[in-house]
């Protein structure tokens, strides 16, 4: 019985360490849990972009930075609500994207906007201005996709050019081998005529 109990305890410890090792930490209920819930509808790429903005703000020795993180998380939900109410035609994902990026750019970095300043600014933005922002934001991805397509085409063209050059070179070498009349004799160190 004691043996089984010991085995069970060891297994529990192993599972716990395994979870820690995997980095599967429970999201902190005061920050990451609401971020996850509020941005659930966003595209994966946009979530990655937001995460890249948030993560570097942690671990700062500047106390204002911690305040900024708190301001961001308390301001995110109302910002999303304001954007959604002003822009009915935006999808849930796009409205969340606009709201989260505006909040991230203004609230996450200390010294840019206070919660009150940001709330006043968001309140004054017209639906047209918000739609323009959404349009501009979406065009970034479209431009990036176009850029990527161009880069791939250029790389393919360069690859083909190199392959063609190599093929041409190999054909020249083959032709020279077939048509040559002289050959270097390593033993004598001289060029000699090929006798056919």
């Amino acid at each position: 019985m004691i043996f089984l109990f010991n085995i069970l305890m060891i297994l529990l410890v192993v599972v716990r360490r395994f979870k820690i090792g995997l980095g599967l930490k429970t999201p902190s209920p005061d920050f990451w849990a609401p971020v996850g819930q509020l941005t659930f509808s966003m595209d994966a790429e946009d979530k990655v972009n937001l995460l890249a903005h948030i993560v570097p703000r942690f671990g700062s020795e500047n106390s204002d930075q911690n305040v900024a993180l708190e301001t961001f998380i308390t301001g995110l939900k109302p910002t999303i609500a304001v954007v959604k109410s002003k822009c009915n035609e935006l999808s849930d994902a796009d409205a969340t994207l606009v709201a989260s990026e505006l909040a991230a750019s203004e609230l996450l970095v200390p010294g840019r906007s206070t919660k009150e300043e940001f709330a006043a600014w968001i309140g004054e933005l017209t639906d047209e201005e918000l739609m323009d922002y959404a349009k501009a934001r979406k065009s970034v991805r479209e431009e990036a996709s176009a850029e990527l397509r161009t880069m791939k085409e250029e790389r393919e063209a360069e690859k083909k050019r190199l392959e063609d050059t190599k093929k041409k070179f190999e054909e020249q070498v083959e032709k020279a081998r077939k048509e040559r009349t002289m050959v270097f004799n390593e033993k004598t160190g001289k060029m000699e005529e090929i006798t056919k």
Partner: protein
Amino acid sequence: MSVLELGAAEKSYLPDGIKLGRHVGVGLNKGLMDKNPALSETIVADLNNVVEEMGVDSDELNQLGSDTFDVILIANTIEFLTQPREVFKSCWRALKPGGIMMVAFPEREALKEKFGDAQTKMWRGYNDDQHMWMAGSFFQFSAGDGWEGLKGFDISPESAKKEDEGLLARFSNTGKSNNMFVCQATKASVSEEIDPNDPEKSFSSLMWMTPTMESRDKLLVTPRLSRVYLHYKDQPARQKAIQENVETLPSIYEALIKMDQFAFPFNLQATLAADLLSDPDFEANDKQMEALKMGKKSNSIP
């Protein structure tokens, strides 16, 4: 000229009359190395005692420093290395940029009788041609493009019996089984500064020895970093942050590789890594890494 010889013993097989400024031998047997007149210094180290991703686990060897030697020789030793990739990593670090590493090994049967048991199982199972490919792959998989001019040579005497001669020819050839082969490469230079005309190449060189990341990850991150770098062409502080933050990539990937690869594909991981590096506040400190893990878990990313 300074030479580091791994697997050193009582003889270095160098041509007579060569004067070397420094010739450090690294081997298992100090008694044998002391008999070798070519060696100016000796270090006793087990080349099979390694630290993954770091190289040979020897303080004395590591204290020789980086970019120290003009030439590294490994003769009649590669067949006994159980973790050659790590040994080659140590060699790459110790070699000066432009320095050459030469790995010489005899034909399969040469040392079989005397040291067959010590040869690795993989080495014993392959023929000489395959050994050449293996030696080349050890270079490739230790530092990738950090090695240049990878070449293989058959330096066997003309009279040597060839393994691929065919049965009849081998019986009729009375020559000795003393074929010898060399695989060599030179160390490429790491970019000190990012070349604005070819940042991709510069970033790639900074990642040659980056642990944790797979070659696939390096291939995905490099163009993204270059793009971000060029995007901030008017912000030198951002560009500097990107260059300095390359060393944080192992920490990022340490966290990322434990995530669900299907839900969080490699290209998105590379995008996230490149974006994090471009932030001057990012230094991969404990809180940031914890935030990264929790951000993933909270569905902030898929």
